[in-house]
């Protein structure tokens, strides 16, 4: 018994040891951990720009990181560019801890799948890392501009991520999620885009992809409409004629599809709640009449936002609301009949909205600040 146990342990040990020549043994300080990677396409080749911390300026006692260093690799494919980047570095390079991938506009226009395919095949990459498109410029420009201005790029991107989490309940621009969306070719892929502002990055709306190539950028309202319909909105400001400002605090949406003679009708039910944030009128808005009025106005406001999203979808023929998946799930049998024609059907989808809301918190002040003027 004891002999067999010892044999099993030894075999287990050698089996584990045999998994790799050296089990990828590498001390953490011998690796350049890439925090942010930019993927660009310029002059007929892919360019990868990596940011990692160097030992310069690191304080071991305080655990503070060193200065950010940038390295670049070029190649005819992203993977070749990555190999080139590895060769240029003194230490080994790892994308295991990369939290953000920035895809330059040109690379996004070329083909998004090509950009992230090599990432999906790396066993160490974090599938939860976020992907952004850089609007109007190359990712390398974003990175170099940021560093020149004294920004710490990965910290700025963390700030962007936090802002994103304040607006939506989940980030749909993770690597794993986008890979899933790419796999479903009938679905219009949308990825958030970043705008470069002075000393910071700003989160824009969604960049829309058609046939895996960047085709359009959506404004914030249209993007918010998508978030409401997809039931991922966390917070959103509502401005009613400059008189009253509210903040959406809770929202729940349900989407139902009806299929009749290849005509798709989508009914979107939304229940939401708001809080009063600002009152600039000289009247008590918490009277029943006024509240009813506000409620109607905020319903219209939200419907308009959602309409922006649906109108874009129907006018462009891109399924940015993932209605195909909905129809597939709710009408499994009929889906097989219309699947081939789906791209042509997107423009004919009829949308109906059923919105209910209430103003939940009035706080202490009943009369708006305008009343005291």
């Amino acid at each position, binding site marked *: 018994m004891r002999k067999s146990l010892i044999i099993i*342990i030894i075999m287990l040990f050698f089996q584990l040891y045999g998994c790799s020549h050296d*089990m*990828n043994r590498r*001390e953490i300080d011998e690796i350049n951990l890439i925090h942010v990677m930019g993927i660009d396409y310029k002059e007929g080749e892919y360019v990868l720009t990596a940011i990692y911390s160097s030992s310069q300026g*690191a304080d*071991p006692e305080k655990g503070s*990181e060193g200065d950010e260093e940038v390295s670049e690799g070029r190649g005819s494919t992203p993977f070749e560019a990555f190999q080139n980047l590895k060769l240029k570095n003194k230490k080994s390079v790892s994308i295991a801890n990369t939290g953000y991938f920035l895809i330059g506009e040109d690379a996004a226009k070329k083909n998004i799948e090509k950009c992230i395919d090599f990432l999906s095949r790396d066993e160490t990459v974090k599938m939860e890392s976020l992907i952004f498109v850089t609007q109007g410029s190359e990712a390398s420009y974003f990175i170099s501009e940021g560093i020149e201005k004294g920004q710490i790029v990965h910290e700025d991107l963390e700030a962007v991520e936090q802002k994103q989490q304040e607006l939506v309940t989940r980030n749909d621009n993770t690597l794993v999620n986008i890979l899933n969306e790419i796999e479903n070719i009938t679905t219009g892929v949308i990825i958030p885009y970043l705008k470069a502002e002075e000393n910071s990055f700003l989160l824009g709306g969604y960049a829309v992809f058609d046939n895996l190539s960047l085709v359009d950028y959506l404004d914030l309202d249209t993007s918010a409409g998508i978030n409401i319909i997809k039931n991922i909105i966390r917070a959103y400001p509502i401005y009613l004629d400059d008189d009253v400002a509210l903040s959406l605090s809770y929202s729940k949406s349900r989407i139902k599809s009806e299929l009749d003679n290849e005509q798709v009708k989508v009914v979107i039910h939304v229940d939401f709640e708001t809080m009063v944030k600002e009152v600039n009128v000289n009247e008590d808005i918490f009277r029943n009449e006024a509240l009813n009025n506000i409620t109607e106005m905020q319903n219209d406001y939200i419907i308009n936002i959602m309409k922006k999203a649906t109108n874009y979808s129907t006018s462009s023929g891109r399924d940015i609301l993932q209605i195909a998946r909905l129809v597939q799930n709710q009408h499994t049998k009929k889906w097989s009949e219309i699947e081939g024609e789906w791209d042509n059907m997107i423009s004919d989808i009829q949308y109906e909205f059923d919105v209910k809301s209430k103003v939940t918190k009035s706080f202490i002040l009943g009369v708006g600040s305008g009343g005291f003027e």
Partner: protein
Amino acid sequence: MLPLHDFIGHIITDNIQAYNKLCVFFCILSVPLGKYRYMVGTHYESINRDYIKRLYKEIKRRADMENRINSAWLKKLFEKSNDIVVRPIKINQNNITVHLFCVDGLINQALFDEAVFRSLKFDPYLAQCKTERETMDYLLEGGAYHVFTIEEADYQLLVKYVLSGMVALIFDSEEKAIVYDIRMFEKRSIQEPSEENVMKGSKESFIEVLRMNTALIRRRIRSEYLVIELLTAGRLSKTDIALVYLSNIANTNTVNKIRSIINSIDIDNVSTPAFIEEYLIENRHSIFPQIMYTQRPDRVSANLTDGRVALLVDGIPFAYILPCQLPMLMQSPDDYANHFLIGSSLRIIRYMSMILTLFLPAFYIAATTYQSQMLPVQLALSTQAAKQNVPFSSASEVLGLLISFEIIIEAGLRLPKAVGTAMSILGGLVVGQSAVTANLVSPAVVVIVALAGIAGFIMPNQDLSSGIRLIRFIMAVLAAVVGFFGLTAGVILLITHLCSLDNYNTAYISPFVDVEKRNIKDTIFRFPVKYFKKRPKDVTGNKQFKQ
């Protein structure tokens, strides 16, 4: 080579029965052995029929004498021992002389004078006794002014009683003795437990005196079913061991098994707890403690009412409890003294600490050497920054610091208290800080090892704490060799080992592996007392209801 007569003489004094058997054996072998000679000292002596006969006669003579209670023999036996008193006392005019047999220093002198000596010299009724038998009867029927008085005819028992501190009066012609239990020796008073102190609850702990300890238990369980069996272990030490259980609850098989194990212990001296523990545990090669010890009588009584068996050893100030299961070792008396939610929270912290102390150093090694992608980005970057300029690998750092930690603990235990504290400060703070400043270790490793070390001391049972400390090393080595694969293999082996442990027919990690889940109410969570309606099934068998 031991000469034959010395060898046999050695056996005579040790064990008369074995000696007799040996004599018979020699007699049977005498004919074929007649051809051979045996070396005695510098010359050879023939081992033939005559030699065996002579030897047998001598053995018989000495054995006969030994089986009898006789003052002359006792005097001869203990003639070199200064503390053994064998002196004659003439008790009346009928020339009846008894011999006092006791150990100086172990008896209560005042009580001896009052209960024994005074009655022997001045009791008028005793003077009228004409024979030793009459005298004995009178003393046993109330003539002796002491309640714990018995007649003893067994020589072996008599010697044992006297050597444990009792006083005997030898009546040579009757070959019997009257034994008075007037023991008194220096002992500690009952103090607060040093290891299992609680804010709310009893402050009593066991001491080195067995009888005092049994009294502490008896005071808490006033049941006629409480059995305190007295057993003896140690050929020379003849240490008293009390087997304590509730006869109506405890599993008879377990009691019998423990009794037979103690009776089978055949060593000279039961001087340290390990001598008993190693006989009682069923899996000697396992590092996990399979016998629980406690200093607290209330904890023993709680376990007895759950159907477990306790062992009290004379000279050892704590009780052993069997059968022992891992969750018992994670419980503290404080859990039951506090509100059940607080008790549960404390237990969760303990279980978390156990996981932390076992795996944190290994996890650090694996994450910084093999699978750095396991670390969140910020943690990876700060770890990387902390490790800059350190010349050693993470594995060397962690293992080196773990060994240093053990050295500091060991040194702290050996040194006097005042010096120990200073040494801990020197070792922990000064050397630690200096090592970081000199870039010998990274600050992250200091934090990891310190956290693992402190978490290890949260274990209520020190044996468990020591075991976990050793396993921590093994895990760290596995992680150093093959990273998380090694760590995973270590965890699998550890769980397999724990699942395979069986302790007196109960699973060691019961109730986590039980089909019946009711016992889970007193493991990681401490449910309110009203839910403890039944005793552990695997411990008590069918006598389960306690509420």
